[in-house]
């Protein structure tokens, strides 16, 4: 299998080839769905390669394969006695293999679905090219073998997200959402970069082992172990700050509190984009960064507390907003933020692979939910939950798919989400003894279970149950073409069976890296599962009571809960707050800077201009054209020279004569 892992770079390369072909020749390929089938083909090849690598890594426990090329080498100088190299390479280890499977499989499924969903849309070559570029960057990010390469592809992924969110660029809300996404994640990216700098400072020279971490190109691994051994990791304040910076970067990309504001607005992009980027892959990159850092670099215990805190708070906080939202895509978007919070929580508690396991299952059932929602939107033409209704008769496959996704999300056995989510809860619970500070966040996560089940089934009931649509003007439901149905079925299979994969011996190898899943469940774990199941069941029941069978639950205008409802609908006024900061704070600074630019800097330049103009004007008047004036100048000069000579004469005579 070692030979195969050396070819891992072919996965991103396949996508790049698709990008180039579709980008250049797409407009001429009308019969190939404007390049769509080429992208799907490349996606298929990449999926096969990716799964092979994933399966291979699962069956080869503890084998990490590192392949790299040095693209810059500086001779020894200063703090680098052995020279300094920068490398580009791939690292196949359990973390990256797991992520690779997610990226390539969900990528292929979404590409196939796009053929049907985006049919007859405008700008399709651009769409498929951008999707292929995104997949190339995402798979490269996952396979990156050093921190700088990781950051490079992280940025490219953000760029593609900008392109794809703003795909319908002539819609002002879409263009604005794309900008917002890029800027908010930028805040995180700056923090990430600072974190890289601090790690560089922490782990250079004598502290780094094996000749220096930075000098070796910031690589993650050496042989089958992290490059930076645990004994080398420092625990000082600077290390904590570095961890906070990395957390900031991850929070930006994964839309965690307080940088979560861009994800709901990112739903302006096509639903397939939401499924791929904002459910399964790009937002997962932030979680992956946390995983990478915890394994290869190191978090201090204060960092862990912060991570747990942010994860726990986000989980609950996002779930509350999903509870009232009328737009089906945005409900699912908040769900994503909430579930990412679970993963972050797990990693902070020290259970990296448990968090990644949830990432694995979540990718599939979240993509399933998005694609099912896309199927509905494609048929009915609206995203407003309150205009839908009664679709389960006309769209049985979609209704079943959405229900399966919802059950998986709620953590109902035997669906995938149950295994991973309960693992997180069980793992975090087991740390509560030694980390009592984690209690509130654990309870928040537990509460979110109830809310999760409620909001997703509220969406299901509003969309599918009842006899007819709430809005008579809504179009009738119908299932999509096979290119849309097959992906749904495939993802259903993963949502159902994904959890059971853990019982395969190979998967245990993949997942038992670091703190693993307890191979046997104890009594407390079963109790906890029972509690979460009860919460989920309660949530579903409440949703049925309020929204099932075509019922519409209206909150009385005078009800005490109305202000709460407004708060949630307005997303806790976060966006308004950020806009205010931007308008008042940043704009004031910008105005001041503009003043300096116009009056001080430009003023200086104009001042020089005026000075020279005046000077030359005066000088020009000396050339009067009158001979007598010129003669006067000659005479004046002559007198001046003589006067000078008279002054200087004594000194000249001293040097020339003898005194």
């Amino acid at each position, binding site marked *: 299998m070692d030979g195969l892992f050396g070819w891992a770079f072919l996965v991103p390369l396949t996508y790049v080839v698709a990008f180039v072909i579709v980008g250049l020749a797409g407009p001429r390929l009308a019969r190939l769905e404007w390049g769509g089938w080429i992208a799907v083909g490349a996606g298929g090849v990449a999926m096969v390669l990716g799964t092979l690598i994933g399966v291979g890594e699962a069956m080869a426990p503890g084998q990490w394969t590192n392949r790299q090329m040095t693209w810059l080498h500086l001779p020894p100088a200063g703090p680098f006695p052995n020279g300094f190299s920068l490398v580009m390479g791939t690292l196949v280890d359990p973390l990256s293999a797991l992520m690779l499977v997610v990226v390539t499989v969900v990528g292929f499924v979404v590409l196939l679905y796009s053929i049907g969903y985006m049919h007859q849309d405008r700008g399709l070559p651009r769409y498929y090219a951008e999707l292929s570029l995104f997949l190339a960057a995402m798979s490269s990010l996952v396979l990156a073998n050093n921190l700088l390469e990781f950051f490079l592809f992280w940025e490219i992924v953000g760029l593609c997200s900008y392109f794809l969110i703003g795909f319908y660029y002539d819609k002002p809300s879409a263009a604005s959402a794309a900008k917002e996404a890029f800027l908010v994640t930028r805040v995180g990216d700056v923090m990430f970069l600072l974190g890289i700098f601090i790690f560089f400072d922490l782990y250079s020279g004598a502290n780094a082992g094996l000749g220096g971490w930075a000098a070796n190109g910031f690589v993650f691994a050496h042989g089958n172990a992290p490059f930076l051994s645990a004994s080398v990791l420092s625990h000082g304040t600077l290390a904590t700050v570095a961890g906070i910076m990395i957390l900031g970067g991850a929070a930006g990309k994964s839309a965690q509190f307080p940088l979560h504001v861009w994800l709901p607005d990112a739903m302006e992009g096509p639903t397939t984009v939401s499924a791929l980027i904002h459910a399964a892959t790009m937002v997962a990159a932030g979680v992956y960064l946390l995983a990478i850092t915890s394994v290869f670099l190191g978090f201090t215990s204060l960092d862990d507390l912060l991570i747990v805190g942010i994860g726990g708070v986000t989980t609950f906080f996002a779930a509350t907003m999903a509870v009232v939202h009328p737009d089906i895509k945005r409900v699912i978007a908040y769900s994503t933020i909430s579930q990412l919070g679970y993963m972050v929580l797990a990693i902070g508690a020290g259970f990296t692979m448990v968090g990644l396991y949830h990432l694995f299952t979540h990718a599939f059932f979240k993509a399933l939910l998005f694609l099912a929602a896309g199927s509905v939107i494609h048929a009915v033409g609206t995203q407003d939950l309150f205009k839908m209704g009664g679709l389960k008769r006309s769209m049985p496959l979609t209704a079943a798919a959405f229900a399966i996704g919802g059950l998986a999300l709620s953590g109902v056995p035997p669906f995938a989400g149950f295994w991973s989510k309960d693992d997180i809860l069980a793992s975090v619970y087991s740390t509560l003894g030694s980390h009592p500070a984690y209690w509130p966040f654990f309870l928040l996560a537990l509460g979110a279970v109830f809310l999760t089940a409620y909001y997703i089934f509220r969406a299901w009931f509003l969309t599918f149950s009842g006899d007819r649509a709430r809005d008579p003007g809504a179009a009738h439901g119908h299932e999509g073409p096979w290119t849309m149905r097959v992906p749904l079925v495939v993802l259903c299979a993963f949502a159902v069976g994904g959890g059971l994969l853990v019982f395969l011996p190979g998967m245990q190898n993949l997942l038992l890296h670091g703190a693993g899943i307890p191979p046997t469940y104890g009594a407390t774990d079963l109790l906890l599962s029972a509690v979460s199941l009860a919460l989920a069941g309660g949530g579903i029941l409440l949703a049925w009571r309020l929204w099932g069978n075509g019922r519409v639950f209206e909150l009385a205008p005078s009800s005490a809960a109305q202000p709460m409802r407004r708060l949630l609908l307005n997303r806790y006024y976060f966006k308004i707050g950020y806009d205010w900061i931007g308008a008042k704070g940043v704009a004031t600074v910008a105005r001041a800077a503009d003043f300096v630019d116009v009056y001080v800097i430009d003023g200086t330049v104009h001042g020089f201009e005026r000075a020279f103009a005046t000077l030359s004007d005066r000088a020009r008047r000396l050339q009067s054209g009158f001979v*007598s004036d010129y003669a006067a100048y000659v005479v004046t000069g002559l007198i001046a020279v003589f006067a000078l000579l008279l002054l200087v004469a004594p000194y000249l005579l001293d040097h020339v004569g003898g005194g």
Partner: protein
Amino acid sequence: MSGLAESGFLVLSGALLAVGLFGILTRRNFVLLLIAIEIAMNAAILNFVYFAAFAPTSASGLAGQSTAVVLVGFAATEVAVGLAIVLALNRAKGTINVAEATELKL
């Protein structure tokens, strides 16, 4: 050099120079301008003659006098050129008023 400082020849050549300078600076008639230039030049030539009279050796005295003669020739040449310019100016502008020839400027 006993007579150098006492005799008033320096005053004479100085006065001639001043007259010539005044003429250069103020005359508007081109011919009168040439005359003034000539006066100033002759003042300088006078100086050569004067210093040659007090020369320490006969050779340097001869040198001074012959320089003066050469310079007179130069002066004549220069006046010839100047008169040619007067004629050209008159042909171009119909006047020999120097104040009307002001095109040598930006």
